[in-house]
C-alpha cells in the first residue's frame, strides 16, 4: 500500500512514522502534489498552534490540494482541527473541509486537556476491536464540539468530538501514535479502510 504522510513540518511527524513502522508500514513523507494525490491513503499529523500550521500549509499550497483529495484521509490532533472551518485559536480560518468550528475549552478543569481519557459512543470501523471506555492519549486546549460527523466522543467535563468522519476524511483529536496498543489498533483500522 502506498501511504503518504503530509509533510508541512508538523511536530509529531516522526512519532507517526515510527508508529506505522511498528506496524510494519513504511510511509512516505511528502508535500509533493502528485505524490499525495496518487497515494492510496493519506495521514495528516499535527501538533502546535493553528495559525502557524495554516501558514505552513499555505506556504506549500497544501490548503488548495487537501480539500480536493478523494482517498481515505486521516487527520490527527491538530490535523483534525485544521480540517474544520474556523478555530478560536488565533481566530484562524482553517481548511474548511468539514463544516465545524474549533473552540477553546472553557472549564474550571486544567487546560490543556492532557493525559489519558476514555473513548465513548464508538460508531465507525475506525474503532473495530476497540471497547467503549478504552483509553487514548490527549493533549490539546481546543476542541471540536459534538456534531453529526462525530464518530467517538470523550468528556472533559462536557462531551466533545474525539473523532470525526466526513466523506473520505477521518480524524482523531487524540494521538493514536501515542495511545499504546489501542492506538496502534486504530491506525491499523484506518489502513484497512
Amino acid at each position: 500500500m502506498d501511504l503518504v504522510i503530509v509533510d508541512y513540518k508538523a511536530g509529531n511527524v516522526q512519532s507517526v512514522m515510527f508508529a506505522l513502522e511498528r506496524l510494519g508500514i513504511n510511509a512516505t513523507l511528502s508535500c509533493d502534489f502528485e505524490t499525495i494525490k496518487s497515494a492510496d491513503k493519506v495521514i495528516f499529523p499535527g501538533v502546535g498552534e493553528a495559525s502557524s500550521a495554516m501558514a505552513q500549509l499555505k506556504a506549500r499550497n497544501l490548503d488548495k490540494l487537501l480539500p480536493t483529495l478523494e482517498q481515505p484521509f486521516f487527520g490527527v490532533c491538530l490535523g483534525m482541527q485544521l480540517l474544520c472551518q474556523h478555530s478560536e485559536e488565533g481566530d484562524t480560518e482553517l481548511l474548511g473541509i468539514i463544516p465545524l468550528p474549533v473552540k477553546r475549552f472553557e472549564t474550571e478543569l486544567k487546560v490543556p486537556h492532557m493525559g489519558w481519557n476514555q473513548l465513548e459512543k464508538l460508531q465507525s470501523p475506525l474503532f473495530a476491536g476497540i471497547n467503549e471506555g478504552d483509553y487514548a492519549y490527549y493533549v490539546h486546549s481546543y476542541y471540536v464540539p459534538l456534531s453529526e460527523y462525530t464518530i467517538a466522543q470523550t468528556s472533559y467535563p462536557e462531551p466533545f468530538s474525539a473523532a470525526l468522519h466526513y466523506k473520505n476524511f477521518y480524524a482523531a483529536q487524540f494521538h493514536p501514535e501515542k495511545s499504546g496498543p489501542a492506538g496502534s489498533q486504530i491506525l491499523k483500522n484506518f489502513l484497512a479502510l
Partner: protein
Amino acid sequence: MLTKRIIPCLDIKDGRTVKGIRFENIRDAGDPVELAKWYAEQGADELVFLDITATNEERKTFAELVRDIARHIDIPFTVGGGISAVADVELLLQAGADKVSINSAAIKNPQLVKDLASRFGSQCVTVAIDTKYTEATGWKVYTRAGTVETEWATVDWAKKVVELGAGEILLTSMNNDGTKAGFALDITKAISEAVSVPVIASGGAGNMQHFADAFNKAHADAALAASLFHFRELEIPDLKRFLKEQGVEVRI
C-alpha cells in the same frame, strides 16, 4: 474521565540509565529503551528522561537516544536536561520527543518559554521547578540543579511561566526529594490551585499512600518517581489498583 498520570523518571548519563538495578524481565536495565518499553507495558502513563550530563557534545548523543526511544515506545515522553535554546528543543522534538522540560534556562531567560510556546505550542513545554522551603524564606525557586537560590517565590514563578506559555509544571520539592516521606503536599496544592495547567508532583514518594495524597489532597494531575520504581519497591500495576480503590481515576 481524564485519569491521573503515573510517571517514572529515568536519569540518563552517556546514553545509559543510572540508578537502575537488575530487572528479571529485562536483558539490560541500563538500556533506556529496554527499560522504557518495560515501563510502558507495566502501565506507566508517560515517561520522563533527564539527561544529567548535558554538555554540547553529549546533547547530540542524547538526541539519537531520543530517536531510538520514540521508535520503540508507544506512550508519550518528555525529555529534559541542559536545554537552553530553541534549537535544542527543535532537535529533540524532531527526534520524536512529545514534550521538553526546561528548568535553569527558564530562570535565566524567561523569554525562552514564550519563544518555545509560540514556535512549538504550549502543549510541549513543561517547565520544571525545583523548590525548597526554609522558615526564613518560605518556598523559593532554586536553579542549577538546586544549588542556587533565586529571587522567585515558587507560586509567583509558576504563575509567571504559565503566563509565558508553559503547558505543564513539573514541581520538585528539594526538601522531600530522596526522603521517601511523601510529596510536598502544601506547595503542590498551592501551585495546582494557582495555575490553570497540569501539575506533576515530584520528590519524596515512598509508598502508595503518598501518591493517593498527591492526587486527593494536593490535587496534582500527575506524580513522578524514580528510584522507587527502578528498585521495584513499588510496582505500577499494584500502585494503580491501590489508587483506584482510593477513588483516584487511573488508567488500568
